[in-house]
């Protein structure tokens, strides 16, 4: 299968796919032509709604019920599968469009397999890992003891330590990164010729993301499997692929070698994608937007100050022992500035945020809001202070009540604090929408009618309704496409300047942090390993952990390449 000379593995010609909504077919893919050669890694890049996932689902025959292929063809050349009863004979071509379920089943797993988007929900929660991997192996006709042995082999191949233990565990006992590796093992189990990786790492921390992508790349090179990466992030795409295909509104706007596309993009759309990927914009280096002089890093009058905050959770099922979520962390958020809290999942970022918001009581340490010690205040006493401090959540798809109109969502804090009457609240809502650059006509819409970026704007407007001094931003852009991320960050910067807001910004992505923050604290396992101005911490990191986070930012290889730094593509 390492023979790359025998023509393309998959050919897509003039593919057109639409979704039936209210008896009308809305086109999602409009005449896409592309091919994937054996052993080649191709990246499909585009924003949400560009049709990239629809193309992937068409290849593997898993389109939803309301999708219709209205034209074109998808041909797979599986070659010799080396077993009787399979779909394969040498030089045989299988047409996927309009194929019967039986034919498609023969292709799935065996010829084309899928690594799905979100590892947290991609595995059956009520079955152990072993049997879930074994299914794909059994479909190849393997049986008996051989199956168990192969399960361990594939788990090991996907980079999982201690596969015997993992095979006996349930998905919820594994971290996101491990689950993604299990999904890779499942994709490998059918010995496919093409793996489709649908946003394989966007739900993971940057460092985990890097390790997973490195691993996939290594596997592809060793085994000669072709890889189709679906992503919204041009930085990931150009780092990892032989060829980049840029999609917009269901059409291919540009394709070619990543270095050509990066150096001389022919389309405005591609240029926008490059500009939106923070890792690509500055030749792979993090260039902080704000530079704070060292003597101005500390401030005498912070909006909020955490002093030696510690939070312990008792461990379940045991009398002794506890889990130290936050360990002696101190930080200040200066007025009118942004302080970032950086770290991976489990580093204590979110717990720190909950402590600052007063949703959790610290085990020890103090929280001072505007110089007032709120550590020991009860719920009723902190309530008036809540007007000063507001929260924007990570996921705009979950943080808005789907049954509330936008207007109702935005005015809810006003109602809660009894501010104004119906008419003045509505006027305020219009003004707030205007601040986040949404038209007043959105007042009566429902969240379902809005895109992710628009929803996050609404969430920001809601947080601003009470004219807070401090806004806590919990990964506010990580659920959004890169191009939309940039717009939201620009909006946040603009609001800060106009309204004098202070932000506590939580993120695992350093390139995003550099776009908005003045100062930063890096958290690792509940401890603050480093803090200071962004320019200082990112420019000359003192701890290994910070260095690791910086190196994990995607786009560095290609960016270095396009900048002519001479770093070889294969690392």
């Amino acid at each position, binding site marked *: 299968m390492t023979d790359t000379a025998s023509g393309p593995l998959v050919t897509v010609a003039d593919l057109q796919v639409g979704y039936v909504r209210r008896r009308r077919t809305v086109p999602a893919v409009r005449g896409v032509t592309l091919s994937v050669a054996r052993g080649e890694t191709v990246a499909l890049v585009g924003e949400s709604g560009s049709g990239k996932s629809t193309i992937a689902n068409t290849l*593997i025959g*898993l389109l939803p019920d309301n999708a219709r292929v209205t034209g074109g063809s998808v041909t797979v050349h599986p070659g010799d599968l080396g077993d009787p009863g399979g779909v394969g004979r040498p030089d045989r071509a299988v047409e996927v469009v309009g194929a019967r*379920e039986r034919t498609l*089943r*023969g*292709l*799935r*797993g*065996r010829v084309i*397999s*899928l690594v*799905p*988007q*979100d590892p947290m*929900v*991609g*595995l*059956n*929660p*009520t*079955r152990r890992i072993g049997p879930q991997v074994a*299914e*794909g192996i059994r*479909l190849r006709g393997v049986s008996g003891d051989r199956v168990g042995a192969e399960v361990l082999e594939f788990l090991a191949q996907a980079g999982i330590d201690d596969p015997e233990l993992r095979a006996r565990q*349930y998905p*919820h006992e594994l971290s996101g990164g491990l689950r993604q590796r299990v*999904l890779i093992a*499942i*994709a490998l*189990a*059918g010995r496919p010729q093409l793996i489709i990786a649908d946003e394989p790492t966007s739900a993971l921390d940057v460092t985990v993301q890097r390790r997973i992508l490195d691993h996939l790349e290594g596997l592809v090179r060793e085994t000669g499997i072709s890889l189709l990466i679906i992503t919204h992030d041009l930085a990931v795409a150009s780092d990892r692929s032989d060829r980049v295909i840029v999609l917009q509104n269901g059409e291919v706007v540009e394709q070619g070698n990543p270095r050509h596309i990066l150096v001389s993009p022919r389309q405005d759309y591609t240029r926008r994608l490059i500009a939106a990927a923070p890792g690509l914009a500055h030749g792979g280096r993090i260039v902080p937007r704000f530079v704070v002089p060292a003597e101005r890093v500390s401030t005498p009058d912070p909006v909020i100050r955490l002093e030696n905050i510690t939070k312990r*959770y008792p*461990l*379940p*099922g045991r009398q002794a022992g506890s*889990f130290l*979520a936050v360990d002696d962390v101190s930080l200040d958020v200066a007025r009118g500035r942004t302080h970032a809290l950086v770290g991976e*999942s*489990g580093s204590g970022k979110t*717990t720190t945020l909950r402590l600052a918001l007063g949703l959790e009581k610290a085990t020890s340490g103090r929280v001072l809001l505007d110089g007032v010690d709120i550590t020991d205040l009860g719920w009723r006493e902190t309530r008036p202070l809540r007007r000063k401090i507001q929260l924007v959540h990570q996921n705009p798809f979950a943080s808005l009540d789907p049954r509330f109109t936008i207007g109702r969502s935005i005015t809810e804090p006003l109602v809660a604090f009894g501010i104004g009457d119906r008419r003045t609240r509505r006027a305020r809502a219009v003004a707030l929408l205007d601040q986040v650059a949404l038209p007043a006509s959105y007042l009566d819409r429902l969240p379902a009618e809005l895109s992710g970026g628009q929803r996050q704007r609404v969430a920001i407007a809601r947080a601003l309704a009470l004219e807070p001094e401090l806004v806590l931003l919990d990964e506010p852009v990580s659920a959004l496409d890169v191009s939309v991320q940039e717009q939201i960050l620009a909006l946040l910067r603009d609001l800060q300047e106009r309204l004098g807001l202070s932000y506590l910004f939580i993120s695992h992505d350093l390139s995003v942090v550099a776009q908005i923050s003045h100062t930063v604290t890096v958290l690792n396992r509940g401890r603050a390993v480093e803090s200071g101005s962004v320019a200082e911490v990112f420019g000359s990191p003192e701890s290994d952990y910070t260095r690791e986070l910086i190196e994990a930012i995607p786009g560095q290889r290609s960016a270095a390449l396009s900048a002519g730094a001479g770093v070889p593509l294969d690392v």
Partner: protein
Amino acid sequence: MTRYILGRFAQALGVLWAAYTVTFVVLYLLPSDPVALQLGAAGIETDKLSPAELHTAMARYGLDRPILEQYFSDLWGFLRGDLGESIAKQEPVTALLGERLGPTLTLTVTAGVLALLGGTALAYLASYVRWRPARLFLTRLPSFGASFPQFFIGLLLIQFLSFNLGLLPATGTYGWKSLVMPAITIAILAASQLAQVLMRSFDDTLSQPYVATARAKGLSRAAVQWHHGFRNALLPAMTILGILVGLTVTSAIVAETVFSRNGIGKLAQESVLAQDVPVVLAIVTIAAAIFVFVNLVVDLLYPLLDPRIVHGQRKAVA
């Protein structure tokens, strides 16, 4: 885990006590004179009694005591297994129940199993079938079944199976033949409700990303639904299992009346009509006990079906 079970048992006892107390309060303290009501059940017309005779009659049934004393002595009796004496039938309630409990339990268990199998099979099939007309028919079936009054189903069954075809006896308490029609009558409603919940649950489950993962492996739809859909779809439906058992017990009253079966349901109906307070109180408490027991079993079954649930442990928040 042991602590969890003990806690749940204590909770169950609390619920039982509450059910008993509420029933007691409803029966004794609501408008109308409880004494006249109960003596009336014994065939004594209070209006025609002299005060002395009334007093003797009240003493006979323990109705002359203060209400709280009645409550506590009845509660103490319950705890020892003495459910008092039926006023209308002049028999100990335990004896009455003992005689009627058997047929009712057979009926409800048969109906429950039928409903469980029927409802699950219907939902499973409805979400498996792809052919649109068949799918439409199967998915509409439960709302059809749930919207028929039970007595009407019972009467239809009697009309066809007994009167027209002469296959089964229309009435009776003993033998499996007498069990078929009442069991089906009860099961249709319970199965319909279960199927409605399960169908929605299957729809949700089969659109989960892990189902896409399973299909991408190349598994057949049958294998995907069996290995990845079924167990996960059952989880949300488990919660209504307790409610369904309650439904089955109450349906027994209708079914036993329609098919003239001598069971608790019929006894309940007779006792309510005759205003036989001790019997009603006992039946309500027993029904509550069954309800509480089933819910306890369901809660203990959860961790067996869903490995993510570990009772007695709180998850650490990271």
